[in-house]
């Protein structure tokens, strides 16, 4: 039975609107129209305002009282879509439903078909709300909406799933060619209309650990198997990713030498990390592969918190973390207690908690930055490891210039986070 006393605060970061940032940047002919409150628009404006662009290709259809008391959603959204089409001429519009329409069960997704018929512009309906375990899963919903429109095929083709930069894509293409594999297609591509065929024999290789929804959707609807792999973060992850990809085509190819070379090229940063300890606060769903590669870099991983572990999809990552304490949706207070007990040299957490932890003497790396940087593959490994190393170097430099050590043990005062005991 439902027991409210076991509820924990599972996440306290921003919502799945955030991926609009990197997705609208990737798909140059896309427009993101979100149905939500003025706060949704405020968040989008603020968060995406950190990127400088000529013309924003996102907007919010702001709900008012009439919408909440039953105005027809299609009637309300239609003139907005027509105005967007006239002004921006997008190839596709991503129609996002947020918390309010989701709870009220306003049928935003149902407007996609009639709007597409009306305007001739491709409409992709997707959920971008605060209910996902991690905000990165906004991309998951967008990709699932795109997979629905992909043509089908019987060929054993490769589709790389997940938003990557041009550099990361180039590496994928090069390696597939070198391995004698079919040329990979990418989803998302630079055009929102560029949809690769996906069928029962497709090797759908996800590059992000937060894409379980679209991978399982493809499995259900198109019949392609869930490609079990380690994700291409870090030299070790990239090696395993390419070797697994080759194995899907019956080829045994070793990337051991490439991995060794990649580690060597990152040695300056690895040296700063080696022997230090790290803990992960549950945040982006990137925790499993990041913990794996930092351990491979020689760090001691004290504890890993992550919002969701998908049994099949994360199987290889989970196996690679054998011997490390992994917590799924950890209780916040217990997590603070663990941090206090372990005092890791580095904590990977979200920005909202970073200052509080820094104030307690921890060295914090903000993980959100990884969603905006090209960190995949061998090409991305220096950037990935470099980010953590830079954090460590900065912390060490500050420690040297301060009178007292930054890492002097300061017990965490948890009273701030606890509710006062009820009378």
């Amino acid at each position, binding site marked *: 039975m439902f027991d409210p006393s076991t509820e924990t605060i599972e996440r306290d970061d921003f919502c799945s609107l955030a991926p609009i940032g990197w997705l609208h940047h990737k798909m140059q002919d896309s427009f993101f129209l979100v149905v939500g409150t003025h706060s949704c628009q405020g968040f989008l404006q603020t968060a995406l305002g950190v990127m400088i662009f000529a013309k924003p290709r996102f907007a919010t259809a702001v709900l008012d009282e009439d919408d909440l008391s039953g105005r027809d959603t299609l009637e309300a959204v239609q003139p907005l879509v027509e105005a967007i089409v006239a002004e921006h001429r997008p190839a596709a519009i991503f129609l996002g439903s947020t918390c309010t329409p989701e709870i009220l069960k*306003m049928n935003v997704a*149902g407007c996609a078909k*009639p709007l597409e018929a009306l305007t001739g512009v491709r409409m992709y309906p997707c959920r971008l709300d605060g209910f996902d375990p991690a905000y990165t899963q906004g991309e998951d919903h967008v990709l699932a909406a795109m997979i629905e429109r992909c043509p089908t095929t019987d060929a054993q083709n490769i589709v790389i799933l997940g938003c990557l930069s041009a550099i990361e894509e180039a590496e994928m293409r090069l390696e597939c060619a070198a391995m004698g594999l079919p040329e990979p297609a990418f989803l998302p591509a630079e055009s929102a209309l560029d949809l690769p065929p996906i069928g029962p024999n497709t090797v759908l290789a996800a590059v992000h650990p937060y894409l379980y929804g679209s991978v399982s959707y493809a499995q259900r609807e198109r019949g392609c198997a869930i490609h079990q792999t380690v994700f291409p973060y870090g030299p070790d992850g990239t090696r395993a990713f390419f070797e697994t990809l080759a194995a899907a085509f019956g080829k045994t190819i070793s990337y051991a030498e490439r991995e060794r070379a990649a580690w060597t090229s990152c040695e300056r940063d690895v040296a700063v990390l080696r022997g230090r300890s790290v803990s992960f606060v549950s945040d982006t769903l990137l925790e499993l592969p990041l913990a794996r590669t930092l351990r491979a870099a020689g760090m001691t991983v004290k504890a890993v918190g992550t919002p969701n572990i998908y049994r099949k999809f994360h199987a290889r990552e989970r196996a690679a973390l054998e011997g490390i304490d992994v917590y799924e949706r950890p209780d916040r207070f217990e997590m603070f207690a663990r941090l206090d007990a372990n005092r890791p040299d580095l904590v990977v957490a979200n920005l909202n908690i970073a200052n509080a932890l820094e104030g307690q003497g921890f060295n914090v790396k903000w993980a959100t930055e990884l969603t905006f940087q090209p960190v995949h593959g061998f090409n991305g490994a220096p950037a990935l490891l470099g980010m953590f190393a830079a954090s460590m170097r900065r912390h060490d430099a500050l420690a040297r210039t301060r009178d007292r050590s930054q890492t002097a043990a300061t017990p965490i005062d948890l009273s701030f986070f606890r509710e006062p005991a009820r009378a």
Partner: protein
Amino acid sequence: MLKIAVYGKGGIGKSTFSSNLSAAFGRAGKKTIQVGCDPKHDSTFTLTGNLIPTVVEVLSGCKFKTDEIERDEIIFKGKFGVDCVEAGGPPAGAGCGGYVVGETVKLLEKFGVYKDYEVMIFDVLGDVVCGGFSAPLQHSEQVIIVATNDFDSIFAANRIATAIGIKQKTGGGTLAGLVANRASNAELVGPYAARIGSSVLTVIPENDGVRKSRLTAQTVFEQDPTGFIGGPWTNLAQRLLAGVPLVVPTPIPERELFSQLGADYVRAADIPAPAMAV
């Protein structure tokens, strides 16, 4: 595949009607699933013999991680081969039942339920009160409204007809017809149905055997193995399988309906039992 949603005024007999209709389809050899969309979770108990675990109970048990749920945790086998699901919902006075129903309907889509069966019946509570409770309309093709020859159930039917008109623009199901329940004729339901462009599918007479069947957690086919009491459901199942015309109803403006129903009642005293659509 028959995808049916049953709506109607609260207490009019939707769950009784739905579970006996499911039983009739099951007895006709059709692979059937009934989805109870009501926080009271009392839609399917005559088919399963007990109150099965609800979807929201199971979800709460695994912290709402929908990926962790197996089909057989929420879909239960009932009599006559009918599979049963209860959405459940929050206790009275709390939460949002519509949200739970809406989420359940989406979850069942993930399990591929909408492709696996020959007949699917959504039994939806009371009047259409909000977005969530109209979610089953998105996944059904035909709607049956249960009413009787009184003011309240027809007034409620009219509101449901309005919702059908709105929802069909975004792919919702349309009206198969009305059922006059606990009635000896369709003297008010019939004219109303005709006025909105639809028809009466069947008239189900008041029968104490039906009441007893609910108290003993049995369908009418077990209560009366001769099949006599179950006749209307058996026949209706056959009609639905053969195909009935679906219409987008034109609801009557409410204040106009209010006065018309009164006039109908007076007129009914003079005319014989109106013809049902055959």
